[in-house]
């Protein structure tokens, strides 16, 4: 094979590939990638919720023996935090 033939063969364009399935899969991956921060946020929120529920349980157990000094502020705050975080989780799940 001489140089001219080899150059001609090498210069042949690469075969055309159909974009259809490839770009559909790529767009799915991009969508998944875009939802990543929301997914991370939802996991953090679930973690915080677990801590709050545990704190509420602990507070309830302590109050069992000290009914006279029961303070509504703490359970109210924990309930509010739980509600706020639940809304955050639901929003993250919707975006994800």
């Amino acid at each position, binding site marked *: 094979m001489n140089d001219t033939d080899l150059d001609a063969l090498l210069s042949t364009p690469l075969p055309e590939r159909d974009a259809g399935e490839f770009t559909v899969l790529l767009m799915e991956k*991009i969508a998944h990638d875009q939802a990543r921060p929301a997914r991370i946020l939802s996991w953090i929120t679930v973690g915080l919720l677990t801590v709050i529920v545990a704190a509420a349980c602990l507070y309830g157990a302590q109050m069992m023996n000290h009914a006279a000094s029961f303070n509504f502020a703490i359970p109210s705050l924990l309930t509010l935090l739980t509600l706020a975080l639940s809304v955050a989780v639901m929003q993250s799940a919707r975006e994800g």
Partner: protein
Amino acid sequence: MDDPTLIARAVRKDVAAFNALARLHQSKVRGLLLRLTRGNHATADDLAQETFLEAWRGIGNFRGDSAFATWLYRIAYSRFLMHARKRKPDEQLDDWQGEAPSGEAATHARVDLERAFTKLSAPEAAALTMCFALGLSNTEAAEALDMPLGTLKSHVLRGREKLKAILGDQP
């Protein structure tokens, strides 16, 4: 719509614009990776997906100093090198695995060429593919392969000599 307009929109995280860019460039990126993976369609397409995903994440860093295609080839080649480094020795591919095109004599020459390409090193195969089949200038190819111009030229020269010897030996 042309590349600069689509890029400007994609930088603003316009998925539709990036989809259009991917449609425009996917064939050549996949073709390059198919040759580098010695005809392994699945691996080539996986690497091409990773290439475009990385391009999507980093499109804000694309400054337009080079053509968008050159930037993509650079990502594709570095993805291929990472994959090649991770590959276990028993996964080495020795021969062209792609389908054999049917029909005319020209396609036989093409299959012979692809088989001959498997005997080249990755930089030689990439350099020849970029400079000939993808139509990049030597400077652009050197940039895409992240190597000095002189090194690129010697890869091209050595690759051509090897191909000539291999194809010349065939009956």
